[in-house]
């Protein structure tokens, strides 16, 4: 079949050969950083078109959630964007709390902010250092992963887990921050600026890195909005939409921070926006630590015994605690009917929970608005007529996480 490309390749009329090459990038490929597939049509090194295939790790969370009591849905959210699980967990808690009309004490809000911003830092560290890896610089990756390890240790001391955290509960945290948590957090706060500065020194003005990233995987603000971009990828095009500022949740209105934006929406802008956001997250954590100091250190959950799982020692000694424990575990808490959409600013953008309750013990319908799934459809347009190697860094700078694509 004749093609407008590679006209110099003369093929016989009946030939089954093509003038272009089909290249499978994925389902398992080092450049995809997850299980999804891109089928690229390439002419030499130029990408002419591409088709995306996803669903390789689809786990039917929305269906499973229709059979789970509210507390048991939280572990499912861990596995959406697994680079920043705590944001998903807390987003789910906030959604249910909105439906139930629960008001959190300020200290719980601030502790949640600390955890969510740590998660954002670890998410952006992974994304940005992987952009560097895909441009051929492995060193920064190994450096900043020490910081990510420290963040994971903080999660571990709060909830016992590292990657799929299941941190916090509906109504607050499962336990208070211990002295060990605080000392790990303070140590992180002491070391992180130096580490991020080092990371920026290695890359931000690095000529080779800049030449690779500037102009690659571009998208205009108008197209990005039409494609439903949110989060750092939208902000890189120059649109300052941030859920934390537009629809504050968990007392984000009490914090003073900037929204870093880019100009042209290429790989370099996305990289710089994420770096800027890490500095802002760092400043938010600093402010949160200062605010928490003035509050009663014994508060780590709201006083809502009907929804918040009581402490084990009370379950063994107090009648009410035992009753509530049983009701919560068996999914027999009173949930009113209602329709809630609650967005939070996830690592990749607006993570929305659309929850419909009919008053039963499980949601009637739960839908996750996954930012990755929505903006990844712009990928063919972003890499069209670019180099294959630009397609690789465009993919990693979009931070496409398979868990969030497939739900």
């Amino acid at each position: 079949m004749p093609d407008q490309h590679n006209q110099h390749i003369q093929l016989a009329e009946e030939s089954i050969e093509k003038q272009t090459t089909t290249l499978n990038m994925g389902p398992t490929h080092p450049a995809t950083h997850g299980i999804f597939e891109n089928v690229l049509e390439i002419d030499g090194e130029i990408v002419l078109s591409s088709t995306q295939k996803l669903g390789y790790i689809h786990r039917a969370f929305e269906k499973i959630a229709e059979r789970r009591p509210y507390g048991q849905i939280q572990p499912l959210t861990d596995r959406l964007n697994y680079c920043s699980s705590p944001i998903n967990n807390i987003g789910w808690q906030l959604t249910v709390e909105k439906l139930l009309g629960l008001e959190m004490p300020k200290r719980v809000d601030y502790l949640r902010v600390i955890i969510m911003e740590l998660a954002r830092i670890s998410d952006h560290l992974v994304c940005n250092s992987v952009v560097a890896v895909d441009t051929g610089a492995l060193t920064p990756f190994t450096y900043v992963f020490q910081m990510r390890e420290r963040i994971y240790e903080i999660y571990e001391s709060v909830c016992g887990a590292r990657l799929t955290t299941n941190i916090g509960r509906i109504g607050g945290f499962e336990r208070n921050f211990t002295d060990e948590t605080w000392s790990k957090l303070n140590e992180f706060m002491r070391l992180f600026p130096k580490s991020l500065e080092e990371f920026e020194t290695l890359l931000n003005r690095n000529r080779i890195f800049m030449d690779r990233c500037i102009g690659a995987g571009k998208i205009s603000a108008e197209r990005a909005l039409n494609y439903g971009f949110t989060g750092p990828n939208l902000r890189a095009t120059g649109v300052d939409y941030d859920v934390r500022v537009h629809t504050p949740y968990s007392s984000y209105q009490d914090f003073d921070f900037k929204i870093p934006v880019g100009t042209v929406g290429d790989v370099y802008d996305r990289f710089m926006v994420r770096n800027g956001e890490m500095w802002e997250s760092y400043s938010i954590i600093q402010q949160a630590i200062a605010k928490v100091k003035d509050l009663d250190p014994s508060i780590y959950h709201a006083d809502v015994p009907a929804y918040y799982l009581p402490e084990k020692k009370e379950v063994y000694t107090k009648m009410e605690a035992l009753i509530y424990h049983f009701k919560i575990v068996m999914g027999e808490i009173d949930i009113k009917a209602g329709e809630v959409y609650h967005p939070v600013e996830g690592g990749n953008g607006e993570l929305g929970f659309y929850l419909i309750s009919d008053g039963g013990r499980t949601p009637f319908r739960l839908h996750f608005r996954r930012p990755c799934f929505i903006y990844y459809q712009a990928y063919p347009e972003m890499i069209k007529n670019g180099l294959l190697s630009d397609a690789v860094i465009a993919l990693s700078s979009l931070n496409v996480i398979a868990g969030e694509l497939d739900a």
Partner: protein
Amino acid sequence: MSLTNEYIQGRLSEKFGTDVSDFEETFGIFSFNIKAEKNIQALQFLFEDNALGFQFLTDITAIHYPDRVAQELCVVYHLHNLVANKRIRMRLSVPIVQPDVNSATSLYSSANWMERETYDFFGVIFVGHPDLTRILNVDEMDYFPMRKEYPMEDPTRSDKDDAMFGR
């Protein structure tokens, strides 16, 4: 000028008359129902009108209500005016035997996969969609798994029903 619920309701009622109904605000989001055939006109009106300006499509999904006769599938659009920071929700219902809904892909590029996902799980047919194929499930699947007639576990099992918990 701030975008109030009353203003949006007034403009929509003026434009679509009795085709829009059930205006309500739940948990901070103003929502309404629209006649299924009018969905694209409504989206376009909300998009292009200068005062309304709902130009960001947050989400499309569907809900299956098996008890609503001839209105079983409900398609939900979440729209956002980023400038005025106002969210609205538009719902429409179609019968499960003929779940045809006009596609919003000409207005929003983002609608493409959202509609494919809704088709994949609920079988809503988006008329005018460029490539209405399954996206997350396997191509060979011959049913729409998020519909309520497909229970998660063994359908004969009753120990996890609401009835067992006094509801």
